[in-house]
């Protein structure tokens, strides 16, 4: 297999982008990444686009073709374009498809992107679309909501390990602080524990400030064989590992309600592939769709011991200046969560960190970073390890 590098990145602003359409945002991200790479469209061999539910959010399928067309890569160049779907892990999976294609030698230059336009429907319709990431027939119809599933993980974590609501809130407080320093993030206001406790209860013990928002946004990366990356950019970022794992679609079938075994498996595969340990990671973007999800993620990826994620969060271990800075972008919680785009945006943030261009949220001497993207309540996990050294 060939080494693969990221040579261009772009993320649109995340938020409620009323003035922009689905096509506007993916064109902005895709062309931005191509421009950042200094590559021309006719050099691109393929597109992989993460999109969870164009069908339900904008009543549009055949997303791959639409994107190739409006990005100017279809009519004359006829560049192949493939949509990739794994619910909220669609973006991470699109990156992985691109990496596999370049690593195998099948394609040389590839755009891996993600896009979701969620605010063209009302919030009930958006929630219903998101519920399709769980088991519709045996969770959804029984009254489960997405926050409800993660609330049951939280309740069990609290019961088993003594994690507190304050520690859950601390994840949101940290990520809003980080988001306040990120120009693309949906929310730029800092919050406190009290803001979380005073917000409405969605599914006990999760308040609305424990939940990631509904967001529009797109992000894109240009991938290239590592040996030619320097011809396009002075600061290529190398893919050291790309790993993916599956687990049961329904939460009730898991071995342990408080552990995402798919995250554990994908993490282990990634560490093995990169020949690295959790201690070697300088900065990580993890899938904090809910505050409890970040606590489980830092445990399941091996940054802290199982059951101690809450305590470590409370102690500032995962802050920008902590031992292992987590979600410097603001995470899904504050930067926003356009489901199909999130996994790609995580890689955009890690590239910013490894290039040393993350501004006020820059982690000192960051050389190795990780992205962790989850689909549903943990049925899919995708982990990538990136480095600024080949």
């Amino acid at each position: 297999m060939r080494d693969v590098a990221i040579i261009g990145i772009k993320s649109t602003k995340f938020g409620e982008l009323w003035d922009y359409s689905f096509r506007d945002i993916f064109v902005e991200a895709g062309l931005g990444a191509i421009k950042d790479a200094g590559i021309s469209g006719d050099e691109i061999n393929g597109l992989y686009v993460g999109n969870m539910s164009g069908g339900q959010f904008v009543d549009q399928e055949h997303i791959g073709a639409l994107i190739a067309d409006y990005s100017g890569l279809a009519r004359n160049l006829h560049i192949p374009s493939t949509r990739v779907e794994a619910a909220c892990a669609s973006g991470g999976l699109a990156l992985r498809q691109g990496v596999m294609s370049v690593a195998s030698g099948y394609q040389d230059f590839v755009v891996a992107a993600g896009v979701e336009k969620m605010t063209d429907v009302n919030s009930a319709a958006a929630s219903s679309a998101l519920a399709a990431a769980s088991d519709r027939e045996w969770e959804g119809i029984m009254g489960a909501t997405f926050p409800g599933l993660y609330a049951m993980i939280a309740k069990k974590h609290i019961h088993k390990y003594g994690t507190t609501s304050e520690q859950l809130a601390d994840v949101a407080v940290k990520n809003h602080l980080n988001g306040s320093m990120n120009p693309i993030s949906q929310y730029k206001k800092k919050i406190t524990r009290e803001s979380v406790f005073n917000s409405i209860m969605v599914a006990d013990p999760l308040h609305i400030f424990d939940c990631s928002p509904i967001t529009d946004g797109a992000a894109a990366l240009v991938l290239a064989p590592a040996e030619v990356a320097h011809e396009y950019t002075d600061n290529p970022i190398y893919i050291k590992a790309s790993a993916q794992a599956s687990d049961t679609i329904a939460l009730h079938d898991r071995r342990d309600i408080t552990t995402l075994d798919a995250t554990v498996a994908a993490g282990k595969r990634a560490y093995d592939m990169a020949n690295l340990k959790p201690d070697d990671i300088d900065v990580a973007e993890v899938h904090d769709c809910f505050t409890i999800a970040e606590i489980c993620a830092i445990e399941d990826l091996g940054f802290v011991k199982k059951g101690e994620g809450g305590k470590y969060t409370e102690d500032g271990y995962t802050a920008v200046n902590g031992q292992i800075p987590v979600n410097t972008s603001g995470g899904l919680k504050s930067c926003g969560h356009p489901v199909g785009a999130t996994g790609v945006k995580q890689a955009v943030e890690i590239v910013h960190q490894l290039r040393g261009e993350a501004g006020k949220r820059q982690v000192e001497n960051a050389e190795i970073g990780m992205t962790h993207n989850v689909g549903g309540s943990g049925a899919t996990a995708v982990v990538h390890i990136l480095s600024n050294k080949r």
Partner: protein
Amino acid sequence: MSVVRFWRNQVNRYNLEGTHCNSCDEYFYPPRSMCPTCRREGELESHRFEGKGEIVTYTIIHSAAEGFENQSPYPLAIVKLDEGASLTSPIVADPEEMYIGMRVKPVFRKLGESGDKGMIYYGTKFAPDKND
């Protein structure tokens, strides 16, 4: 959910009917047509669950799922049946009396409805089993 899609599993939903693998002695609810443990070697047969079980974890849902709007707030739990399978179900109980480890029994109840003129869905929910 469409009528036909619900109807297809009506027997399972009404009677808590799942499957049992004769090869590895594992139980599944909802039913599976392939045993995930012994895979191709498995031999599955229908199994009607006794229905008694224990709450593994729960939540009180305030922002309701589609079709459950007029029931909120409502308790929702993962129930581990005594035979071994686990499922997700609303609990017919006061939110205040919920706790992890609570013993529960099955009750036949309305699950939801597809709007004012749509089908009413029935199925098995669970309630506290005070005699257990």
